[in-house]
C-alpha cells in the first residue's frame, strides 16, 4: 500500500488497523518459526538463520510499528548507520581473534645471531585455535 492511500493526519501518516494487526500476526508467526527451526541442527547456520529471521521481525517493527516506511532518508540513516557501524566493529573483531597465530621469538644468545636465525615469522594464520 502506498503512503498516500492512507489517511493523512495533520502530523503524520495514519495507517489502517489491518497494517498493525497483520504486522503483529506476522511477528508471532516468525517467532514460532524461529523457535521451531532452532530445534533442527544446521550447524553454524543456526546462528545465521536465527539472526536473519530476527532481522525480518525487526524490519516489520521498524517499518510499520515505527512508521519508518514513511519517514525521510535522514531517519532511515539513524537506524542504518549504527547497524553499519556494528558490522564494521564485528569485522574488526573477526579479522583479529580467529587469525591470531603463535609466534616464537628466537632466543638471542650472547653470540652474534646469524642472519638466518632472525626472529621466526608467526605460524600460518587460522590454522591454530587457542
Amino acid at each position, binding site marked *: 500500500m502506498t503512503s498516500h492511500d492512507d489517511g493523512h493526519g495533520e502530523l503524520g501518516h495514519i495507517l489502517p488497523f489491518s497494517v498493525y494487526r497483520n504486522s503483529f500476526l506476522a511477528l508471532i508467526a516468525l517467532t514460532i518459526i524461529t523457535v521451531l527451526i532452532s530445534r533442527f541442527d544446521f550447524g553454524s547456520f543456526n546462528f545465521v538463520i536465527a539472526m536473519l529471521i530476527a532481522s525480518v521481525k525487526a524490519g516489520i517493527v521498524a517499518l510499520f510499528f515505527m512508521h519508518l516506511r514513511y519517514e525521510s532518508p535522514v531517519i532511515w540513516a539513524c537506524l542504518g548507520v549504527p547497524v553499519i557501524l556494528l558490522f564494521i566493529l564485528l569485522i574488526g573483531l573477526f579479522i*583479529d581473534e580467529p587469525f591470531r597465530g603463535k609466534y616464537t621469538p628466537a632466543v638471542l644468545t650472547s653470540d652474534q645471531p646469524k642472519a638466518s636465525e632472525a626472529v621466526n615469522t608467526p605460524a600460518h594464520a587460522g590454522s591454530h585455535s587457542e
Partner: protein
Amino acid sequence: MKTEAVTSHSSELNYLNCDKSVWSWVTTVDHKRIGLMYLFTISIFFFIGGLAALLMRTELAMPGHTFLPGDYNAAANTYNQLFTVHGVIMIFLFIVPGIPATMGNFLLPLMIGAKDVIFPKLNLLSFYIYMVGAAMALMGLFIKPIDTGWTMYAPYSIRTPSAVIWMTGAAFVLGFSSILTGLNFVATIHKLRAPGMTWLRLPVFVWALYATALIQVLATPVVGMTLLLLIFERVFGVGVFDPTMGGDPILYQHFFWFYSHPVVYIMVLPAFGVVGEIIPVFSRKPLFGYKAIVVSSLAIAGAGFVVWAHHMFTSGISDFSAKVFSVVTFLVAIPTAVKVFNWVSTMYKGSISFSTPMLYAMAFVFLFMIAGTTGIYLATLAVDVYYHDTYFVVAHFHYTIQGGAVIGLIAALHYWFPKMTGKLYNVPIANVAWFLIMFGFNLTFLPQFVLGMQGMPRRYFDYIPEFAGLHMVSTIGSYINALGYSLALFNLLYSAVYSRSKAPANPYNALGLEWQIASPPPHDNFHEIPVVTHEPYAYGKPAHGHGGAA
C-alpha cells in the same frame, strides 16, 4: 537584508546584561550563556591538567628520581597517577567538550540564523551532566587517583586498588553530555536553518560541527558501554575482559579505541572549521574549494571509524588485521591533506593581514602538517612496531591535539572575542602570547620526536642518562608553553572584564550571519530571522558592500 544594530552601547540590552542575576545564569537556556559557562569550566580544567603536565615535566627534567615525594617506587607510582590525571582531565574534561561545547554552542544558532538550538533545555542538561561528571572525576582524584593511564586497559584496570570506578563512572557520565550535545547540534542543523540557508551555503564551521556531532552521537555510546562493562568487571567479575575467566583484554582495547580514534576527530574537526573561517577573512579571498572542504569533513568523520586498531599494532592482534588497519589508516590522511591544500590555496594571492586569529590559524596549518606527517610514520605498521609506546607517539598526538585542537580553540576565542564580549582584547599582548606558545610548544615536543626515535619509552618516570639533554630542553619548553597559554587566556579574561573598548558588530568586515548582529548579540539573536541569498565566502568579489548579506 538590512544589517541589524551595528553599534553596541552598554545601555542596549544584550545576552549578558539582559538579566544579571545568578539564578538567571544557573537556569539559562540561552545557548550563548551556556557556551560561556562551558568555556569558563573547561578553562579551569585546562589549567589543572596543565599543572599535572608541568609536574611531570619537572620530574622528567633530569634522570633519576628528581622531586616527587616518597621513595623511588612511591615516586614512580605518583608519576603514573600524574600522567593518568593529565590525560583524563585534558581529554574528557577539556578537549572533547572543547570547541563544540564552547564556540559551537555560542555560534551555531547565530551562523545558521536561528534563535537558539533546537533543544535548549537539553543543552542546559548537557552542561549539568558535564558538571556532574567533572565532580565525579575530581572525587576520584582526591580519593585515590588512578594509575592506569587514561586508556584504563584491562586487566590492570580490573585489579588496581585505585578509584577506577569513580573515574570510569565520570567518563561515562561525561559521555552522556557529549552525546546530548551532538544530538542537539545534528537536529538543529537539520531543522533550524534560516530561509535560504541551504546546506551548501553553510559556513564550514557549521559543517565541521555537524561532522563532529555525528561522531559524538555514534562513537560515544560504544565507549560508554565499554566503561560500564569495566565497572561491572570490577564489581561483579563479569569475565568479559579478564583473562582468568577466559576473557580477552584485547577486546577491551578494540572497544575502547573504536571510540577513542573517532574522538580525536571530535577534537580536531571543529578546529579545522575555525581555521576555515579565519583564513578567508584575513586573506580577503573566498575559501578555496568549499565543496571539497565539506566532503572532506564528512569523509574524515566516516573514515575515522574504520582505523581504530592502529592503536593496537603491538598488543597481540593478528598480523592480518594489523596489515588491514595500516592500509586503511593511510587513507584517512587524504581528506585532511585536501583541507590543508585548500587553506593554503585560499591564502595564495590573497591580501593577508596578520591579525592574532590569523597568526593562530597559520600556526595551526604548520603544526598540523607536522602532526599529520608523523601520523603517517605511525600508520606504517613496520615503523610503528618500533615507535609504539615511545615518545614519538607522545609528540605526534600532542602536535595533533595541542598544535591542532587547542590552537584552534585559542584562535576561535580571539576571532570571536569581539562578538562574545562586545570588546577588543589587547593585541600586542595577544601576539606575544602567541609567540611564547609557538616557541614553547615546539621546544617541548620537537625533541620528543627525536627521543622517541632513540627509544625513550612513554609513561616512564625515569630514563637512561643519554636522554637527559633533550628532556631538559623539553621541560624548559613546557614552562614557556605554559607561560604563553596563561598570558593568552589572562589577556582575554582581563580584556573581557576590564577593557573599556567597544567592538563594532563586524570588526573584520566578515560575511556570515553572526557578524550582521550586534556585539554582544541580543538575547534572542535575531529580531527577525534573516533570509540568506548568497554564498558564505564571497570576499574580494565585486558588488560586495560592508559585509551585508544582500
